[in-house]
C-alpha cells in the first residue's frame, strides 16, 4: 500500500485561465463581454461621428413641434396643430386597437375553423384545409393589399346610396351603411351625458375618459358581482343536494335591469349614420383601412390558430373522450369538462405567440394607410422631421415593450398551468 503525499499546492498560473474550470468560464465571459463592448463602442462611435457629419445630433425636441398633418382614424381628439408626440400617441392607440380587434376575431375564427377541420363532414373539413393552406402560404402583406382592393372594388361607394336610382341601400333598418369607404354603424349617444374626465390636462398625452362609460362599467360590474354570488349559491346548493336550481333569469335580471335603468336615466340613444353631403355623417365610421387590416390580420392569423387548435385537440388522446363517454358524460360535458381544459394547456402558449405575431404584423398598416404607430411615428413624422434615428429607435422600443408585456403574461400563464407529473 502506498500512501499518496499531497500534491504540492500550486499558486495561480496564467495557464489556469484556459485550463482551470474555475477560471475558464470567467475567461470566456470576459472575452465575450469585451467583444460585445468593443462592438457596441464601435457602433456608437460611428454613429456619433456620422451624426456629427450630418449635423443631426440626437435630439427629441421635434416631438413638441406641431405635427401639421391630419389623422383620420383616431380614438383621441387630435388636429393638425397638435404635436408629433400626440400624433405618435394616437398612432400607438390605433396599433393597440387593431391588434386587440385582430386577436379577438382571429381567435374566434381560428377556433371555429380548427374545430371544423376535425369535423366528420368531409366537405367541410376539406374546405377548411383549403382555407388554412391558402392563408398560411401567401404573405400577409399581399393579403392586406388584396383585401383592401376587394373592399374598394366590390362595395358600393356612398354615391351609390344617393338619389332616386340608388343602387345600394343601408342595412338593418337603415342603421348600418357598408360602403367602400368603410362601415358606418350607429353610435352610442347620451342626451344627459355626465361629461368627460380630463386626464393629463392639456399636455400631448391628454386623455378623455367618458364618465358615462365609467358609470356603466360600475353598474355592470356590480351586476356581474351579484350574479356571481347567485351562481356560487347555486353551486353550493348543487353540492349539497345534487340538483341545481335554475337561476339564469335571476342572474340575467340583476345584470340587465340596473343597466337598463341607468341607460334610460342617461338618455341613451343611437346616433344613426345618414347620407349628408359627400359622405355619411353621424354614426361611428370604421374606415376601410382599419377593416382591411383587421380582416387580413385576423384571417391570416386564424389560419395559424386553427392549426394550433386542431393540434391541441388532437393531442388529447381518443382515450380521454372514450373514458368520459364510458362514464356516461354527454358530448357537451365531455368537451367542457375533459377535452377543453386539457387542450387549452397545449393551445395557449403558441396562441399567445401568434398574438405577438399579429401585433407585429399590424405594422404593415402603412400598406393601406391605416395610421398606426408605424404610420405616424415611423411614417409621416419621420419623413417630415428627418429624424430617422430617433424615430426608428423609439418605434422599436414601443414594439419591444408591447411584445415583452405579452410574453411576460405568457410565461406567467405557462408556469401556472403546468400539468403535475411524477
Amino acid at each position, binding site marked *: 500500500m502506498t500512501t499518496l503525499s499531497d500534491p504540492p499546492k500550486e499558486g495561480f498560473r496564467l495557464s489556469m485561465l484556459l485550463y482551470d474550470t474555475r477560471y475558464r468560464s470567467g475567461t470566456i465571459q470576459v472575452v465575450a463581454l469585451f467583444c460585445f463592448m468593443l462592438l457596441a463602442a464601435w457602433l456608437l462611435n460611428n454613429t456619433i461621428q456620422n451624426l456629427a457629419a450630418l449635423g443631426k445630433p440626437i435630439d427629441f425636441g421635434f416631438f413638441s413641434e406641431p405635427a401639421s398633418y391630419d389623422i383620420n382614424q383616431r380614438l383621441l381628439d387630435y388636429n393638425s396643430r397638435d404635436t408629433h408626440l400626440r400624433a405618435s400617441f394616437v398612432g400607438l392607440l390605433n396599433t393597440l386597437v387593431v391588434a386587440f380587434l385582430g386577436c379577438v376575431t382571429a381567435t374566434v375564427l381560428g377556433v371555429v375553423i380548427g374545430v371544423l377541420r376535425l369535423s366528420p363532414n368531409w366537405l367541410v373539413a376539406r374546405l377548411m384545409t383549403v382555407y388554412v393552406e391558402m392563408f398560411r402560404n401567401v404573405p400577409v402583406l399581399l393579403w392586406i393589399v388584396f383585401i383592401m382592393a376587394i373592399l374598394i372594388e366590390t362595395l358600393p361607394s356612398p354615391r351609390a346610396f344617393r338619389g332616386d336610382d340608388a343602387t345600394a341601400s343601408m342595412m338593418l333598418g337603415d342603421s348600418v351603411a357598408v360602403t*367602400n369607404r368603410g362601415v358606418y354603424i350607429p353610435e352610442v349617444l347620451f342626451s344627459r351625458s355626465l361629461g368627460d374626465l380630463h386626464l393629463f390636462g392639456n399636455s400631448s398625452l391628454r386623455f378623455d375618459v367618458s364618465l358615462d362609460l365609467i358609470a356603466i362599467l360600475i353598474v355592470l360590474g356590480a351586476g356581474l358581482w351579484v350574479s356571481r354570488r347567485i351562481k356560487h349559491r347555486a353551486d353550493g346548493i348543487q353540492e349539497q343536494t345534487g340538483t341545481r336550481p335554475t337561476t339564469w333569469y335571476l342572474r340575467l335580471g340583476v345584470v340587465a335591469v340596473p343597466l337598463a335603468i341607468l341607460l334610460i336615466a342617461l338618455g341613451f340613444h343611437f346616433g344613426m349614420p345618414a347620407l349628408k353631403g359627400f359622405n355619411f355623417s353621424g354614426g361611428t365610421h370604421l374606415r376601410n383601412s382599419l377593416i382591411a387590416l383587421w380582416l387580413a390580420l385576423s384571417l391570416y392569423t386564424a389560419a395559424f390558430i386553427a392549426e394550433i387548435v386542431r393540434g391541441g385537440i388532437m393531442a388529447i388522446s381518443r382515450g380521454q373522450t372514450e373514458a368520459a363517454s364510458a362514464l356516461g358524460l354527454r358530448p357537451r360535458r365531455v368537451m367542457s369538462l375533459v377535452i377543453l381544459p386539457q387542450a387549452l394547456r397545449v393551445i395557449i402558449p403558441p396562441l399567445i405567440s401568434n398574438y405577438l405575431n399579429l401585433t407585429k404584423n399590424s405594422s404593415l398598416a402603412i400598406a393601406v394607410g391605416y395610421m398606426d404607430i408605424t404610420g405616424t411615428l415611423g411614417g409621416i413624422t419621420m419623413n417630415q422631421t428627418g429624424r430617422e434615428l430617433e424615430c426608428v429607435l423609439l418605434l422599436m422600443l414601443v414594439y419591444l415593450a408591447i411584445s415583452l408585456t405579452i410574453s411576460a403574461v405568457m410565461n406567467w400563464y405557462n408556469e401556472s398551468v403546468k400539468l403535475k407529473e411524477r
Partner: protein
Amino acid sequence: AGTLDDVKARGKLNCGVATGVPGFAFTDANGDWQGFDVAVCRAVAAAVLSDATAVEFVPTTGKTRFTALASGEIDMLARNTTWTFSRDVDLKFTFVGINYYDGQGFMVPKELGVSSAKELDGATVCIQTGTTTELNLADFFRINNISYEPVPIETNAEAQQQYLAGACDVYTTDASGLAATRASFENAGDHVILPEIISKEPLGPLVRHGDDEWGDVVRWTLNTLIAAEELGITSANVEEMSAAAGDKPEINRMLGTEGTLGEMLGLDAAWAKRAISVGGNYGEIFAKNIGEETPIGLARGLNAQWTDGGLMYAPPFR
C-alpha cells in the same frame, strides 16, 4: 474625392428615382427605365460618362430618398421632390434647379358638380403621401375652416384605384400627377381638375450639400437642356450644330465649339452635346414623356419657356 471623380471612376451614375410614377419614372417590359425624371439622369450620365446607359437607377420611396442621398448611396436624386427651405437648409441638400413647376391640385368626378375646392366641406380626400402634400392639405382646409377626411395612400396606382372606385371623392397630389392619372382613365372626360392650386411645388433634381463641383455639373446639365430648347438645339440638329462653330456664340460656348466651359466643369468639350443628344432638349423630353401627345397629356403651362410665357428660364452660358 468629389462625387464627380467617384462617378467617373465608377463608370456609372447612381441616380435615385421614384419606384413608379406614370410619365416620370417607370420600367418598360425590357426592364429599362423611362420617364421625365429618368431623362435627367440619362442626360447627366451622358454628359459625365459619355454613355446615357451608364446609369444605375435606384428606386426610392418617400421615406428612403433623403437617406439614400445623404449616405452617398446615390449621387443625385431625380424624383419629383419639392424644393423647400427645410430640405435645403435643415436636411442639407442642394437643389440644382427646377425641371417641373408644379402645384398641388384636386381632381373630382364631374358628377359631383363641384367647381371649387372650397366646396369640398366634408369630402373624403385621397392623398398620396409624401410629406408636403399632407401638410398643404391640412393647412388649406384648416385655413378655410372646412372639414375633410384624409385617406393616406402610399402609391399613385392605389390612390387611382380608390378614387375610381369612389372610395374617395377627391384625389389630391401634384397637378402633373393628377393630369397624368386622369389621362389614363377609361373615361377621362368624367373627371375635372379643380382650378385651385393650393401650393407651389417646384420639383427638381438635388444633390448633397458641400460638393459644389458636382452640384454644378448636374445644375448645368439641366440648364443645358432648358437652354437648348430656347436656343433651338434639338436632338436632330445637335450633331450638325456641334460639328462647327456657328454664328450664335452662346450655342458655340454650350456645344464646346468655342471656349472651355466643359473643362471648367471638369468635363470635356462635348458634354452638352451628349446631354442633348440623349433625349433631346427640355421641350423634346417633355413632349416625349408627358406632353400632350402622350397618354399623360400634360400641357406646358408654367413649364413653357419664359419666352412663351412660362417660367423655364436657364441662366446664360457665358
